[in-house]
Structures are given as structure tokens and as C-alpha cells.
């Protein structure tokens, strides 16, 4: 890597990390995590030995149900006839397996919590991606930057990569902080029953899928912000597309559904199939989303290279 390129990358990273929006959302995330820690600590109670045994029995029953070794009333069918990705929900929430009587925070549920927090973080990644470049256009610093790095392709791609890295890093840092912050809560006021290999598999699988989605969202946000030369324009386009255009297309044009960004994102992030897009595998959904991000980014790069900077 040339000294000039590494200088540009370091400069961009420092510039991005110095942005107030990053610090603001970082502070909000820390505040949210602190509130969650306090709320869960207050609500949850350290289970007694009997409650722990009850919890273990419950988790074992749920696992047996998922594995199909526990019989359920015949009129509800056998769990093994239920699609694998729906078995846990069925076993846990259908009510046939009696849950623990007391409200105890279980760290084993954190994989679901991480999955849940991924959704706002994906939206935030889009916003940050758009803002990192939109603010540059608004301030006019792109003009200044081009008097320092005249190779537009190099400048744009560097900015895009740094923006995506910063957004992904930010989202993962928030989730890591959440996981770390809840660990002592589980140890002191909750339970770590069920934190096993399957839990970590589910957790890291979810984090891995969320990582790609953070990258996709930030790249698309950056690309739209760069093309519209404005953060607000990017947010408007993103909202109109997701809330109006894609809703209209999936509602009135059934052939479009397999190409829906939201539908594929649901499949990818949840790691489960969806009735919205029958037959779409999780991997295919992730590939399609990555292709969308690459396509939009390539188009934005070509536009940036060709358009006048006035």
C-alpha cells in the first residue's frame, strides 16, 4: 500500500471517528445499555437452587421438544413435522411446556436480544453511512479533499470502505458492549443456564449475519448520500423506497417478491426462511443483499467520477 493511500485511509478513519454523530449515537447506545442493565437488575432475581433446577428442567424439556424426543398431544402434531427453524418458537411458546414460575433473566436469551437490537442498528448503519458522506457535501469538504487527492476513484472507494468499516465497527461495538454489560447481571441477578455451545453458535451466527447487514445498509446509505450529495436526501430516498415503493411492488407485483430488499433482509438476519419468499435460502438472501449493495455502490462511484463538483 502506498504511503499516500495509507495516509488517506488513516485521515479518513480519524475524520470519521471524530464526527459528532458517531459520538452522539455512541453516548446514546451506552445510555441505553445502562438503562437495560439497571432495569433487568431490578426486575430479575437470583434464582434459588429450586428455581435453577426448575429452569434447567425447562430448558431440557424445550431441547427435547426441539429434538422431537418429547411427546406432545397428538392433535398438535409431532414437533418433527414442524419446519426446523420454527421448532424452538413452537416448543418454547406454545404453552405445552410449563416455563419457570419466576421472572429470571437468562443469559441464554441474549442471542435473541442481539438479533432484536440488530434491526435498529441496521437502520442506524444506513443513517451513519449517509451522514458520513452527506455532511461532507454539505460542508463542501469534498472540494477541499479533491485538491489533495485528485484520483476520484481512490478517494471515493477509500471513503466508502472507511464509512462501512466505521458503521460496522460501531454496530458491533454496541452489541459487544451489550453482551458484556449483561454478563455480570446474569451472574449476579439472573441465570447462565443454557449458555452452551448451541447458544454461542446461535449468537455468533446472528452476529455474523448482522455484520453483513450493517455493511449492506451503510454502503447503500453512503452511496445514496453521495449521489444525492445530502444526508436528508438519502434518508428520504431510503424511507420512500422501503415504506412506499417496495411495499407497492411486493403488494401488486408478486414476481417482485423474491427481489425484495426487506424480505431478503428478514430472511438473512433471522437466519430462517420466510413465507414472504418461499424457497429463498438464507445464503441466497445474503448474497442478493450483498449484490444490491455492490451494485448501488458501483453506480454511485461511477456518478462521482463523472459529475462536476461545483
Amino acid at each position: 500500500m502506498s504511503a499516500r493511500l495509507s495516509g488517506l485511509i488513516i485521515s479518513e478513519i480519524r475524520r470519521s471517528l471524530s464526527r459528532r454523530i458517531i459520538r452522539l449515537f455512541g453516548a446514546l447506545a451506552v445510555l441505553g445499555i445502562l438503562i437495560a442493565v439497571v432495569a433487568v437488575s431490578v426486575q430479575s432475581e437470583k434464582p434459588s437452587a429450586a428455581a435453577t433446577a426448575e429452569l434447567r428442567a425447562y430448558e431440557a424439556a424445550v431441547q427435547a421438544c426441539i429434538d422431537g424426543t418429547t411427546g406432545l398431544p397428538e392433535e398438535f402434531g409431532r414437533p418433527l413435522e414442524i419446519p426446523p427453524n420454527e421448532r424452538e418458537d413452537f416448543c418454547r411458546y406454545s404453552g405445552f411446556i410449563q416455563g419457570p414460575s419466576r421472572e429470571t433473566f437468562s443469559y441464554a436469551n441474549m442471542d435473541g436480544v442481539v438479533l432484536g437490537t440488530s434491526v435498529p442498528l441496521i437502520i442506524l448503519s444506513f443513517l451513519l453511512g449517509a451522514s458520513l458522506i452527506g455532511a461532507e457535501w454539505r460542508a463542501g469538504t469534498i472540494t477541499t479533499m479533491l485538491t489533495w487527492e485528485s484520483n476520484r476513484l481512490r478517494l471515493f472507494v477509500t471513503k466508502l470502505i472507511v464509512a462501512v468499516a466505521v458503521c460496522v465497527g460501531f454496530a458491533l461495538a454496541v452489541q459487544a458492549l451489550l453482551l458484556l454489560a449483561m454478563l455480570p447481571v446474569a451472574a449476579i441477578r439472573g441465570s447462565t443456564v443454557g449458555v452452551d455451545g448451541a447458544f454461542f453458535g446461535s449468537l455468533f451466527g446472528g452476529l455474523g449475519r448482522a455484520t453483513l447487514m450493517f455493511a449492506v445498509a451503510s454502503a447503500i446509505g453512503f452511496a445514496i448520500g453521495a449521489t444525492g450529495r445530502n444526508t436528508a436526501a438519502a434518508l428520504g430516498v431510503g424511507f420512500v423506497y422501503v415504506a412506499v415503493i417496495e411495499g407497492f411492488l411486493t403488494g401488486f407485483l408478486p414476481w417482485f417478491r423474491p427481489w425484495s430488499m426487506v424480505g431478503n433482509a428478514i430472511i438473512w438476519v433471522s437466519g430462517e426462511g420466510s413465507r414472504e419468499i418461499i424457497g429463498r435460502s438464507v445464503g441466497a438472501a445474503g448474497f442478493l443483499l450483498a449484490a444490491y449493495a455492490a451494485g448501488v455502490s458501483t453506480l454511485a462511484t461511477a456518478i462521482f467520477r463523472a459529475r462536476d463538483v461545483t
Partner: protein
Amino acid sequence: MSAVIEIEGLRKEYRRLRAAPTLAIDGLDLSVPAGGVFGFLGPNGSGKTTTIRCLLGLINASGGRTRMLGSDVPARLDRVLGRIGAIVETPTLFPTFTGRRNLELLGRIQGIGRDRVQVVLERVDLAERADEIVKHYSLGMKQRLGIASALLRDPELLILDEPANGLDPAGIKEVRDLMRTLAEEGRTVFVSSHILSEVQQTCDRVAILARGRCVAAGPVGEVLTAGRRRGVLVRVQDPAKAADVLGKARFEATVRGDLVAVAVDPDDAATVTKTLASKRIYLSEMRPDEVDLETVFLELTGPQESPE
């Protein structure tokens, strides 16, 4: 004298969806020699900033050829960019960062360290305010920070677009002195400005742009006197009588307000005083009939356009 900027037949046409194309630059030819301060003048919309943007590759020219420091630009701009410092219109740096941090981040791109940042901050007299957020800077301070950013690379060629914008008189003088100092160090300063008196005092050469074309270029003195006869202005008690006396003595003399303008080489002004004194008309003042840049500018660019 080698040219640091060469422009041949530069054209820039802006195309718009629902309007006729606008010709911002119409076959501009310009050559800026190395060294000294070169003033680039023109009324609003004459194409000055567009020309600078074309040189820096910010906008694509519709035609023509541009070269800087011997390289075709923008195609080979990356080869010479390290030898050029530029600010375009109002300097644009991140408003929520300090002045120092802005410069450090820019300098980082080309491996320029903090020592050099401190040097340029001191040079533009911003060192004491360098750790304040740019958003809180006055326009004049932003201009000085912009000049500091242009100086970071220790450039051979400085392109400054309206560097005195927003500066108070003291600030304007500082910028003028800075430009002169930079030129004396052997750099070329290419500056567009609307403050004609400043250009006249600061620049060695000027080019005047009107409607996308260069209408005059050369050393300031030549541009001021081009197509004009030299002369002197004479103040007397009765200008009409003095003009009549000089006319009869075969001088070309006209009354201009309470003065008499006489077309004569200032070196031969003694003949005027002698002629008037012989008729008992005595002078209270005599000075060269100089034309200021503003007059030339308005004549060349047309009365319908005001200086930018």
C-alpha cells in the same frame, strides 16, 4: 519565462435539463508565467471560478487544453498536485473540528506532520486560535485557515480564489503582504479577486475575463495604459482658459472637471508649465494622468456588469 499555467481554447458549457445550455467559458486562452503574483479578474459569471475548477479537475471542461507545471490537467493532475496549493471560493473545512485538527487530517494524506501544521498556522497568524472549533471562526479566520491549508504542501504554485473575501482592512493587508512574501520566495501566486485596488497594489500581472473570454492580459502597467495616450492633469484657477491657451500651443488639452487633461509625456511636462506661465496662468497642481484598474476593468467588461 516558463509558464506554470497554460490554457488554450478552454470551453465549459453547463447543460441543464429544462434550460438552454450556459456557456461559462468560451475559448479562454491564458498563460501565467512562473513567479510573481498573477491577478485574475472578472465580473460575476465571467468564468473565473469555473476556470479554476477546470484546472483543479473539479469540473470537466467541454473543450480546450489546460496544463499546470508542465503537465496536462486534469489527466495528469496527480503528478503535480503535491506542488500546488489551492483554495476554491470560501475555504471548506470541517466546521466541527478545530482548525489544527482540520489541517492535521489534510496533512496526513500526504504525510505532512504536526510541525508543518504549526508553521503554517503561525504564518497566517492563527496559531493562538488553532484549537478552537472552525464553526466559531469568523469568515476572515476561515479564509486564513484556507490559505494555511493551501500552504501546507509548501507549494510552487498557489491558486487562491477570492482569498480576501470577508477580511477586514487589516486582514486584507495581511493577505496582500503574505502574497507578496510568497511571490518573493519564488512561488507563483495565481489569485482571483474582486478588490481591484488590492490587485493593482499586489499583482505583477493581470488577466481580465469577460463573458468567458480573456479581454486583457499582461503586466499591470501595460494593461492600465493599453490603447491610451499618456498625459498629465493640471489644476489651475480657470481650466477653460488654460485649455484654450494649451490648444493654441498645439497641445491636446481638454477640461475634465476642475482640471485640464493634457496629452503629453509626463517627462515633457515642463513644456506645459512653460506655456501656461508665459500667459500668466500658474499651476497649483500637476500630476500624471493615471488610469486605475477599476476604470480599465469597467471599460473592458462593459458597463452592464459590475465587478465581482
